[in-house]
């Protein structure tokens, strides 16, 4: 039987900024790379994002934040996923994130940060390399 394991990604905009062009461009780039992208819209709380990630059973969550609140919001999403036993869902982040914030974000569980100047190709490649594409070989 053909098992088809598509990479599923949640693209979410936590916090209050209303700019989602970047998130939409990313969603399209991921789609064009053959992934299934669940886009949840603007102004999401960390709780909403974690719930959506769990219900949609995504492999990875991509957070886009331009408001400067990333230091609170990104770790909060990681923490909520952990609390609900979903710490195998990776969290990555992008947006206007100063280089100096990256070590702390990474220490608090955000797996990768794509700050200003990152290309879509970089993000696509990261996801392709860090998500096991097919679970079909697993026996149970």
């Amino acid at each position, binding site marked *: 039987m053909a098992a088809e394991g598509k990479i599923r990604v949640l693209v979410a905009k936590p916090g209050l900024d209303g700019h989602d062009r970047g998130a939409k461009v990313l969603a399209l780039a991921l789609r064009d790379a053959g992934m*299934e992208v669940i*886009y949840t819209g603007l102004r999401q709380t960390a709780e*909403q994002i974690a719930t*959506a990630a*769990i219900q949609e*059973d995504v492999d990875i969550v991509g957070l886009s934040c331009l408001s400067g609140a990333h230091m609170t919001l990104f770790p909060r999403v990681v923490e909520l996923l952990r609390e*609900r036993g979903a710490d195998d869902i990776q969290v990555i982040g992008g947006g206007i994130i100063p280089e100096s914030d990256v070590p702390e974000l990474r220490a608090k569980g955000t797996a990768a940060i794509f700050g200003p100047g990152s290309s879509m190709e970089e993000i696509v490649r990261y996801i392709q390399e860090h998500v096991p594409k097919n679970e079909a070989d697993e026996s149970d």
Partner: protein
Amino acid sequence: MRPMKATSATELVDRMLAGDQRALARLISRVEQDRAEVPAIMQRLYPELGKAYCIGITGPPGAGKSTVADKLTAQMRQLGMTVGIIAVDPTSPFSGGAVLGDRIRMQQHYLDDGVFIRSMATRGRYGGLSHTAKGVIKLLDAFGKDIIIVETVGVGQTELDIVETADTTVVILVPEAGDTVQAMKAGIMEIADLFVVNKADRDGADRMLMDLRMLVHMHAEADDWETPVLATQAHVNVGMTELYEAIQQHHTRLRETGQLTERRRAQRRRELLELLQHRLLTSILDRMDHDSALHDLVQQVQDATLDPYTAAQQILVSYTPSSS
């Protein structure tokens, strides 16, 4: 590294039946991937099934299907019912990827434990989505949802197949989506239990309502259910109570006339045939990869040295179903 991945299907089913959303979500993925353990999962769940009422919502892109699903869900939650939503969006035929955006309209329910939302892409497999969606409906049913809403763009046979799973099918049209001849030719007259003209404040809505009511009236056989035609503006919650009541009336009527049982019997038969069709085709395709004689037949058809009718005949004759 990914602890959940290694969990066995049996354990996931137990956890799901105990109310674990994460286990439910993982099982849905396995059904979507058509994994080898799916028959075992379904066998386990089977005694738990048949409690949910399934509402199908279909219509052209932009008709407001997600918004209607969202508002209906809000009403049913107020009445204490739990809801599962399956939102289907098309897979890109070019990349195989998809952008699934129906959740955007359903944000009010994200933190409500009584609502479970799952987005699905059509994943262009040989008639695969239809039975996959039916599998997901079963999971949500076994999970204990009172109502399951399946929302899908109604543009092709696959979508109609999914909607045929529903107990009540709501077809949503909008004034700008062309005249009602579209409704006639797309075959949706036949599948609609309820028509909704959404965005009914727009130009042409009255005309569309009138035309639809006339069509429905002509289409209804004597003493049969005359499909209600409702006007709504879902984004501002206009007409939603009426829609909910109409669904209720349809449900009651199905139950009282015995049609609910009849419908579900027909659906189960159709589901079995679909599943057989899918399994047979996948199994033949698998064999073609390994059997050089079958592979040669395909080559000959590709090279135009053999007609497809003869080739299909030969493939079928040589085919003895395996147990895989």
